[in-house]
C-alpha cells in the first residue's frame, strides 16, 4: 500500500530519532513549526548530550497535550505555534553599518538613558570595528569569579561543562510540565544563563555587567538556572533598561532559582521589551515562568521593573520549603497605551516560621490594563507562617484599568496574613501643584510616579535603580495632557 504524505510525516514525528533522519536539517534557521524532529534538531545543533535531548522531548510530549491558559486578565490573538521558527543560529552579521542608519527615536531613548556610544551600537546591532572594552572587562570579571569557584556561563556551556549540576537541578523547581509556556520553553529553549555559587561564598559583585554585555541577541526562549549552595550569596541582575526591538513576537522564558540552606539569592529584573506602537500594533508577548526554591533559613528576593511588552504574563514565585526561609517580591509594573500586564507572585509556605513579603506597584496609563495576581498558600505543616502583602495601583487618565486578584489559601491556623491594597489617581490638582512650583507636567508625572514606586526602586541595586527611574519616566512620556 502506498504511503500518503500525511502518513509519512506522522511516522517521521515518532521515528526520526531512531532513523537519524534529522541530519539533513543543517540550515542556520530551522523550518517553521514544531515537532519532535525539530526538538531533536535544536538539541543536536547545540551539541547537547543525549539526556538533554531526551529531557527536551519529554517536555515537548507534555506540551503537545497541554492547552494554552486563558485565566489571565489579558486579551490577545494566540500565536500560531506552528508558524514560528524555533531555532536560528546567532546572527553574526550586523544589521547596520553605522548609527546613522538606526531609528532616531531609538537613539533618542538611548541618549536619555545615558547609554554609552559603544553600547548603543551594540544594542542597536551596529557593526563595531574595535574590540570593545567590555569584552576585556568580561574576561577579568570571569577570572575573579573563577578564583572563588563561581561558575557563571551560558546554559549551553553549562550543559557541556557542568552536566552533573545541570542534570541535578534543571526542572526541579519549574518542572517541564509545569505550565504550557514552561513546557514549550523546556522543549525548545535557545540559551540563557547558568550560575553556581559554591558553599559559603559571597559573590563579590552583582552579576550584571557581564550579563548586560551578553544581553543583545538573547533568544526568544531563554532558560536561566541559578544555584546558591549552602551559606552562599548572590545578587543577579537580568535584563537591560535599553529598549529591545526584538522582532520575535513570542517570548517564553524560564528562570529557576535554588537557594540551599542558609543561602540568599537576590534576583532583579528590568524588562523593557518592545510594547507595540501607540495604536497597539506589534509588541512582544512575554510569558515567563520564574520560581525559586528556598531550603532551610534561605532567602530569595525577586525585584522587578516591568515596563515593556505588549502582553506580560509573569509571576515570580517562592517555594518556602525549608523552615525559617524567607520569600520576597517587589514589583513595579507600568502599562501605557494598549499594553496589558497580568503579573504578581506566588508564595508557597511549606516550612515552619516561613515569612513572605509582597510589595506590588502597578502604574497604568493610556488604554492599558494592569492586573496584580497573587497567591499566598500556607501548608498545614507550616506553623507560624507570616505574609504581608501590599498592592498599590496608580492610574493616569480615565481609560486605563487596574485590577487586583489576591488569593489566600491558609491551611494552618497559626498563619498570619495581612493584605493591603490602595488605588489612587494622578490628579490634576497634584499636577497643578507641581506646575505652580515650576515643575512641568512631564517632570511632575515622573516625580509622582517615582514617589509611588519608591519602596520598590529602593530594593534595586544602586546603579540599576537610577536607570530604572529614568526608564519609568520614558515609559510614561506623553501619557498625560
Amino acid at each position: 500500500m502506498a504511503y500518503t504524505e500525511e502518513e509519512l510525516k506522522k511516522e517521521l514525528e515518532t521515528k526520526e530519532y531512531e532513523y537519524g533522519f534529522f541530519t539533513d536539517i543543517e540550515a542556520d534557521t530551522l523550518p517553521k513549526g514544531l515537532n519532535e524532529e525539530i526538538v531533536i534538531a535544536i538539541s543536536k545543533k547545540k551539541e547537547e548530550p543525549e539526556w538533554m535531548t531526551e529531557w527536551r522531548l519529554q517536555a515537548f510530549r507534555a506540551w503537545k497535550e497541554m492547552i494554552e491558559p486563558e485565566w489571565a486578565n489579558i486579551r490577545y490573538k494566540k500565536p500560531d505555534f506552528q508558524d514560528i521558527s524555533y531555532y536560528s543560529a546567532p546572527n553574526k552579521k550586523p544589521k547596520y553599518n553605522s548609527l546613522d542608519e538606526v531609528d532616531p527615536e531609538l537613539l533618542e531613548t538611548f541618549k536619555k538613558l545615558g547609554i554609552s556610544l559603544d553600547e548603543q551600537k551594540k544594542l542597536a546591532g551596529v557593526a563595531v570595528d574595535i574590540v570593545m572594552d567590555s569584552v576585556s572587562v568580561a574576561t577579568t570579571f570571569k577570572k575573579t569569579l573563577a578564583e572563588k569557584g563561581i561558575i557563571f556561563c551560558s546554559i549551553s556551556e553549562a550543559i557541556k561543562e557542568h552536566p552533573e549540576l545541570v542534570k541535578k537541578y534543571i526542572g526541579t523547581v519549574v518542572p517541564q510540565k509545569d505550565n504550557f509556556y514552561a513546557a514549550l520553553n523546556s522543549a525548545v529553549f535557545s540559551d540563557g544563563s547558568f550560575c553556581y555559587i559554591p558553599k559559603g561564598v559571597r559573590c563579590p559583585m552583582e552579576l550584571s555587567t557581564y550579563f548586560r554585555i551578553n544581553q543583545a541577541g538573547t533568544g526568544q526562549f531563554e532558560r536561566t538556572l541559578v544555584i546558591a549552595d549552602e551559606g552562599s550569596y548572590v545578587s543577579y541582575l537580568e535584563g537591560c533598561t535599553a529598549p529591545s526591538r526584538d522582532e520575535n513576537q513570542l517570548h517564553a522564558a524560564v528562570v529557576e532559582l535554588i537557594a540551599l540552606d542558609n543561602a540568599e539569592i537576590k534576583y532583579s529584573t528590568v524588562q523593557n521589551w518592545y510594547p507595540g506602537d501607540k495604536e497597539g500594533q506589534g509588541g512582544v508577548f512575554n510569558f515567563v515562568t520564574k520560581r525559586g526554591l528556598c531550603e532551610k533559613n534561605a532567602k530569595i528576593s525577586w525585584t522587578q521593573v516591568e515596563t515593556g511588552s505588549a502582553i506580560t504574563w509573569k509571576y515570580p514565585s517562592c517555594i518556602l520549603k525549608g523552615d525559617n526561609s524567607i520569600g520576597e517580591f517587589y514589583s513595579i509594573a507600568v502599562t501605557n497605551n494598549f499594553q496589558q500586564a497580568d503579573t504578581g507572585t506566588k508564595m508557597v509556605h511549606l516550612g515552619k516560621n516561613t515569612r513572605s513579603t509582597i510589595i506590588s506597584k502597578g502604574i497604568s496609563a493610556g488604554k492599558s490594563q494592569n492586573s496584580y495576581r497573587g497567591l499566598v498558600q500556607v501548608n498545614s505543616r507550616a506553623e507560624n507562617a507570616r505574609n504581608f502583602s501590599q498592592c498599590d495601583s496608580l492610574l493616569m487618565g480615565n481609560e486605563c484599568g487596574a485590577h487586583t486578584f489576591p488569593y489566600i489559601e491558609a491551611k494552618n491556623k497559626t498563619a498570619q496574613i495581612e493584605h493591603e491594597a490602595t488605588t489612587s489617581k494622578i490628579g490634576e490638582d497634584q499636577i497643578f501643584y507641581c506646575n505652580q512650583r515650576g515643575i512641568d507636567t512631564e517632570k511632575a508625572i515622573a516625580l509622582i510616579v517615582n514617589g509611588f514606586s519608591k519602596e520598590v526602586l529602593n530594593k534595586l541595586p544602586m546603579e540599576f535603580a537610577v536607570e530604572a527611574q529614568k526608564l519609568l519616566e520614558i515609559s510614561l512620556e506623553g501619557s498625560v495632557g
Partner: protein
Amino acid sequence: MLKIDNLHAGVEGNEILNGINLEVNAGEVHAIMGPNGSGKSTLAAVIAGKEEFEVTEGTVILDGEDLEDSAPEERAHKGIFMSFQYPVEIPGVTVTNFMRTAINESRKARGLEEMPANQMLKLIREKSELLEIDRKFLSRSLNEGFSGGEKKRNEIFQMAMLEPKLAILDETDSGLDIDALRIVANGVNKLRSESNAVIVITHYQRLLEYIVPDYVHVLHEGKIVKSGTKELALELEEKGYDWIKNEAVV
C-alpha cells in the same frame, strides 16, 4: 508689577470672576478679603494659570507681559508663587526632593546650572530655621499626614526657598495657632522688599496684624466691591460681610 484688567473667568460657562481690576506694585502688600465663595481662590488660581478656569475676558499682565499664553510652570519661572489653601499630598516624594526639583527646574528655565548640593543644603537649613521647621520633617512625604498647620507652614517654607517676585497666599492663616501664625508671618515679612509684592487672601483681620497690608480689597460675587487701607479690614471685622453685601446691592 501685576495689572489685572476687567478679568472675567469661570468654569464651563459659569462665570466666577466678573470684572476684576487690580494693580499691585513692587514693594506692596495687598489683602483680599471676602465671604466664602466670593471667588478669592479662583482669582489666585487664575493668576497662577490653572487651566481648569477659562478666562473669557480681560487680561493679567506681569511686568508688562500678558500672561494669557503662559503655562503655570512658566508663570512660576517668572516669579509667581501661590500658597495653596488646600496643599496637595504627593506620597513618596520628600519635601527636600520636591524643593530640589522645583528650584532646579526654575533655574533650568532661566538658563542656570543646577544648584550645587552644598548650596542647596545651606539654603534648606537657613529657611527651615527661619520657619522653625524640624529637619526630620523635610524627609517626610510632601503633605502626607501633615496637620493643617504643618501644611501651611510648609507652603511658606517653599515660598522662602523659591523667593518669588509675587507671592499669593490663599488663606495661609487658617489652621494655624497663634505661635505658628507669628512664625509664618515672620517668614512672609522677611520676603518683603522693594522688588517683591505679596497678595494675602484671608477671612480674618488677625493675620493682618502681623502682615500689615498697604491696601485691602473686598471681593464679593467675583467683583472687587470695596478697596481701602488697612483700616478697612478692621471695619469689616466689626461689621461683618453683610455690610458689604448690602452696600453692593445699593
